[in-house]
């Protein structure tokens, strides 16, 4: 029973990781931008949702809309004001990483100045655990998160395969110069990638606020797990990010059987480390790591 309980908990965490990893993987795969501030987008979305529901007392869908807008404005804004300028100067990927990390520091501290460093959460009847079968406690939220993740991943797969924008985005990943030759603007497509990638963190951020609560420092953890999951899954692969996200979520909770909860992050990164040494391209990777 304990194992089943842990598996379900892991699934819940895994859904959250899958969604944030998908956004990170999409952005990294298509634009080659190491978006370390993805976690900051997550924190902004989480606090926007919390502010609108708990402080302003508005219904959840208004809050979800507000959180989406906040995430998109931050993600796309960061691309336009910082990443694009750095890319123009032909700097290395690492310059982008340092700048993105600077953005994480700024966001984390601005938010803790406004709302404090503690956890915020808005609990709903959804997050109250019920005894499903004797000894197995499950909050209905888990079914919501599975459904939400399924909807978002389905929509993303359709977008990438069936729409002109999706085709253009995949073309950008393969050959940005060719995209330009065909009269498309790589900058514009990259901007759309950032918009979509930022939207993908919103459901994860909302689930986090409802399930366990968020604090200003949670972005760190989110971006590291996203990075791990997108590499384990294969950069740029949606299904890879989904599977790796769930894999890491489940592995983290199952590890509780053997070691204490302080080791959960180390477990994820051990998986990542082994993958990089044994199979750097990831589960579904086509791209070469070299």
């Amino acid at each position, binding site marked *: 029973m304990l194992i089943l309980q842990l598996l379900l908990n892991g699934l819940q965490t895994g859904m959250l990781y899958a969604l944030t990893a998908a956004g990170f993987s999409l952005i*990294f795969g298509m634009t080659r931008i*190491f978006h370390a501030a993805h976690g900051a987008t997550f924190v902004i979305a989480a606090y926007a949702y919390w502010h609108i529901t708990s402080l302003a007392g508005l219904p959840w869908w208004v809050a979800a809309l507000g959180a989406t807008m906040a995430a998109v404005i931050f993600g796309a804004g960061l691309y336009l004001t*910082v990443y694009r*300028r*750095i890319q123009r*100067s032909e*700097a290395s*990927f*690492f*310059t*982008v*990483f*340092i*700048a993105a*990390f*600077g*953005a*994480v*520091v*700024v966001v*984390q*501290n*601005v938010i*803790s*100045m406004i709302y404090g460093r503690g956890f915020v959460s808005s609990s709903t009847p959804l997050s109250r655990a019920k005894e499903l079968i004797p000894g197995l406690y499950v909050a209905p939220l888990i079914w919501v998160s599975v459904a939400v993740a399924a909807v978002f991943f389905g929509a993303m797969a359709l977008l990438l395969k069936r729409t002109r924008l999706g085709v253009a985005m995949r073309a950008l990943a393969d050959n940005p110069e060719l995209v330009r030759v065909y009269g498309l603007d790589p900058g514009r497509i990259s901007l759309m990638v950032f918009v979509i990638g930022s939207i993908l963190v919103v459901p994860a951020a909302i689930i986090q606020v409802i399930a366990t609560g968020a604090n200003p420092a949670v972005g*760190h953890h989110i971006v*590291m797990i996203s*990075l*791990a999951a997108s*590499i384990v899954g294969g950069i740029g692969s949606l299904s890879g990010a989904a599977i790796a996200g769930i894999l890491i979520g489940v592995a983290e909770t199952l590890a509780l059987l053997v070691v*204490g909860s*302080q*080791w959960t*992050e*180390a477990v994820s*990164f*051990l998986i*990542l*480390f082994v993958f*990089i*040494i044994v199979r*750097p391209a990831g589960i579904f990777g086509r791209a070469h*790591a*070299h």
Partner: protein
Amino acid sequence: MTSYLLNILVFVCINGILAVTLNFILGYAGIFSLAHAAFFGIGAYVAANVGLHVGPSILLAMPAAMIVCALLSVLLALPALRVRGEYFVAASLGLQIIAVSVFAEWHSVTGGLGGLVGIPVPEIFGFRIAGAGPMAVLSLAMLALISGFLAVLTRSSFGRNLMAIRDSESASLAFGKRIAATKVLSVAISAGLAAIAGVLYAFYVRFVNTESFMLDTSILLMAMVIIGGTGSLWGPILGATLITLLPPVLSYVPYLPPQQVGSIQQIIYGMAMILLMVFQPSGLVALFKRKEKSQ
């Protein structure tokens, strides 16, 4: 006041050693490691344990810490042989996270989250190095020694091999260079010398816990090297000096609400990182070089 300034000088030197050794693999070998703070930590923990259980001699702690770090650096060299760029960054990030978990949980050696206290005042040939003054002299000497050693090394054939591998692995392979051995050795040198910073830190602060060796420190060190300028001798030292001086300078800025000082410092610091990367991505040292050329 003097001891306050000397205290800052010690930290400038410790960070300088870390930045210079990180720059050795980052600037010359193209190995972007986010695990440098882990080796800083390992050096500090080894020194603390030697100090607590064996004796207060720095000449004993330093070789021990260097050997342990150089041996453990194989863990970093392993992914460096397999992957480059972003993938290596992720692997080193993994090592850093795992190292912090080990620091926090291996109670018998690291003291857990509480850390190790009561590290003795260090000695060199029986001469006690107590307080900021003597420590500043020692750290300055170590920084000069390490920078000098690395400057000579990068100008030698080994350094040229390293840069050749950085620029084109296949070309240097074609010239018969032993890539794996060169990479492993350079990582070991970098980690082994970073251990010295750890030893100085442990014996100066005389208290070590995980706080000082977290991912934030690794990123800070990375920022020092990049802000100063990679692949140069003075760049990392300049970057280390600026970043170490920032908090003490900011604490003199008037009218900051006292309970928010920490956050405001961090925000200024984050903004500086963004702006420097946008407007001066090749580092501050490039600024001086350009001026020299135009004159």
